[in-house]
């Protein structure tokens, strides 16, 4: 059953991010459970499906973060391998899309295309691949192929990787027999027969996460969904206009790419209560130790002698120093330090309070009514097509949202009340990709 609505009503998409290795997760909370046992994944996935979400999302990190030469110990550490967890989740869900982040640099197209096609078959059409490109030598130390790619080559490899995977996914003929493929390009020279027939979605959904111009172009050429960090209305509108503006050059329509920022939310019975809760959560996310660590990342030097409740360092950051490995760089250290100092001066904030203010990414704070309205506005004003929700608690952090915000979104006609199809593509309103040529021959 669907509620009646005007056909032009833009509806939003929702995905659930299993909160993991980041400092969003408040693991000190008494409600916080295992980050690794299957029960936790099952709980969050079932909740997302109860809420009729489009998909469940897992991030990836292929090496544990290190800070000052030692393994970072303040945030959640440890997570299972994504595709294996998602195959297991396919057993306990029926409609929910299942999205794995998998690096294009430390994998090979044949093997990964096969694993993704398998997930699509075993889940009856619910697989997605978030293509990431981090390729630093630090991560490479876990791989026999090593950290061998120049920064600039990351996306040429990723683009060729996705194109090659699509050739493999298309390589069986309509009558269900494999046809030989051969791909010869800059990064891959492979040939043979793919062992898996075309999967229920044709191709698993492709998601991209990355923000540079090269990343945006790659997304515009190859992705079905972009996962972004542009969580404010203005930034979202600008990002959306930019990325969607790149689609035409690739012969694609405005609707063929869904923009989904990763967002957090805090709900309360009143606006004031929600703000209070949000503040409380921020203080737990940015412990005194975490505040020092954040400053050390910017200043590039040991600051353990500083009092987190005292002022910011009086000296300037060391521009060359890099204390942290395995984490995306935030921006120019001097510029960030200047911004933090200005903030601290203007509001009279301590180091820890400054970090809390400056690094806050809480997107939606309010009552279920105001959060539903804001999310809806975001989407109707083309700042996004939906959201990837990052709860701060594992695994119950989505329960309230599904119980209170989702019904309000449904009442507004902004979100589905029932799944209308079985595959992730159908949830996202994406057509099944046409069969490529899938023929033998050079494709570079």
């Amino acid at each position, binding site marked *: 059953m669907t509620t009646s609505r005007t056909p032009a009503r833009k509806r939003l998409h929702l995905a659930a991010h299993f909160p993991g290795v980041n400092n969003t997760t408040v*693991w*000190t909370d008494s409600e916080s459970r295992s980050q*690794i*046992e*299957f029960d936790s*994944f*099952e709980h969050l996935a079932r909740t997302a499906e109860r809420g009729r979400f489009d998909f469940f999302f897992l991030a990836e*990190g*292929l*090496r*544990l973060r290190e800070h000052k030469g*030692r*393994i*970072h*110990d*303040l*945030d*959640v*550490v*440890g*997570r*299972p*391998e994504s*595709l*294996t*967890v998602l*195959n*297991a989740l*396919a*057993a*306990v869900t029926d409609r929910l899309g299942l999205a794995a982040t998998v690096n294009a640099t*430390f*994998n*090979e197209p*044949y*093997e990964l295309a*096969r*694993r993704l096609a*398998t997930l699509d*078959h*075993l889940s*009856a059409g619910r697989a997605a691949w978030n293509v990431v490109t981090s390729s630093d030598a630090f991560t490479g*130390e*876990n*791989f*026999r*192929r090593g950290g061998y790619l120049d920064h600039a080559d990351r996306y040429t490899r990723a683009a060729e990787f996705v194109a090659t995977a699509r050739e493999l996914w298309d390589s069986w003929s309509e009558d269900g027999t494999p046809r030989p493929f051969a791909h010869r390009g800059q990064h*891959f*020279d*492979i*040939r*043979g*027969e793919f*062992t*898996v*027939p075309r999967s229920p979605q044709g191709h698993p959904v492709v998601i991209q996460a990355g923000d540079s111009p090269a990343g945006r172009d790659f997304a515009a050429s190859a992705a079905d969904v972009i996962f972004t960090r542009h969580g404010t209305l203005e930034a979202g509108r600008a990002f959306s206009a930019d990325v969607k503006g790149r689609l035409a050059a690739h012969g694609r329509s405005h609707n063929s790419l869904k923009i989904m920022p990763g967002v957090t939310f805090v709900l309360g019975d009143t606006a004031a209560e929600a703000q209070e809760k949000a503040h409380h959560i921020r203080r737990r996310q940015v*412990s*005194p*130790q*975490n505040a020092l660590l954040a400053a050390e990342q910017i200043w590039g030097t040991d600051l353990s002698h500083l009092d987190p409740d005292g002022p910011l360092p009086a000296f300037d950051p060391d521009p060359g120093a890099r204390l942290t490995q395995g984490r995306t760089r935030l921006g120019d250290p001097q510029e960030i330090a200047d911004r933090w100092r200005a903030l601290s001066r203007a509001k009279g904030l301590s180091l820890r309070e400054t970090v809390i203010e400056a690094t806050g990414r809480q997107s939606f704070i309010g009552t279920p009514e105001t959060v539903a309205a804001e999310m809806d506005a975001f989407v109707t004003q083309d700042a996004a097509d939906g959201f990837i929700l990052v709860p701060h608690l594992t695994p119950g952090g989505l329960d309230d949202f599904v119980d209170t915000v989702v019904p309000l979104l449904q009442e507004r006609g902004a979100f589905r009340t029932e799944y209308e199809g079985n595959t992730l593509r159908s949830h996202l309103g994406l057509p099944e990709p046409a069969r490529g040529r899938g023929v033998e021959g050079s494709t570079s």
Partner: protein
Amino acid sequence: MTAHSRPPHLAVALDTPGAPGPFDAAPYVRLARLAERGTLDFVTLGDTFTRPGPDALAVLARVAPHTARVGLVPTVTTTHTEPFHVATAVQTLDWVSRGRAGWQADVSRTPAEAALFGRRPAAPAGALWREAADVADVAGRLWDSWEDDAEIRDAATGRFIDRDKLHHVDFRGTSSTGEPFSVRGPSIVPRPPQGRPVIVVDATEDAARETAAARADVALVRAEDPDTAHAARTELRARAQELGRDPDHLRVLVSLPVELPAAGDAAGLADLLTDWHAAEAADGFHLRPADPERDLGRLVDGTVPALRRRGLLRRAYPGTTLRDHLGLARPAGRYAAVRTGEAS
């Protein structure tokens, strides 16, 4: 220890020989549940990059939530894969199955497989199995790289883990084509329920024997008669001992093709297994049905009850993990031991 002082272990292959495996989950789920009804130790699912069919580890992960006890042992090859990915995927199968994961390590021999990756040529069997041993070795190190109690969630100091209980493994090995490789570690996945998932190696081929003796928890041998199997078991145990292992920590199973077109054949199979067991051929059997859809039902409804009547098969699982079924202890982490040693 003689092979028949314990009841035999029993495992079954879910592969459909000669046909592409099904691509939907239902048949695998049905078969694995059937095996579990027969209290079999584990099911295996073979894989190569050229066999039409889905990825075996993915299939058994898909099966895990539908089953509660039976061990799940996919083949994952070691030649064209990244050891780090293999280790973390198997480790994750152990998490999603709550301690029922195994891993049949195998090699990719053919130029056809090499061409699918385009990175390295096919290599001789000896080099492939030496590399497989290295991959199994580094996987074991990665599984141990988090001590069991590394996650401390100490709110007072703000530390989620005790970083001193995580270890770089700094493994150095050699690829089948001769290049050195290294893996830094630690794993991204905490130590799994079994400590280390069960490693299975088909030791039929000469080139695989050393790897099986050095790294396997379960070695499979193919043999036409009990004497050949017994000889293979004796040799594997002796080699394991030479390598400094306790041979009683190695289970040797005879891998037998079976075809059960009629119910009577299922009972006949029980007689055959009883005879082989009495001849101390092995620690148990890995049965490879010609047609799992047909044969597995007969096996569970015919062979299993007959073996139970003779006291050769338990009626219930002795524990919850695959190691429990196999009578293999949960290994202590090697780095934890080192650390304690240093401290004392």
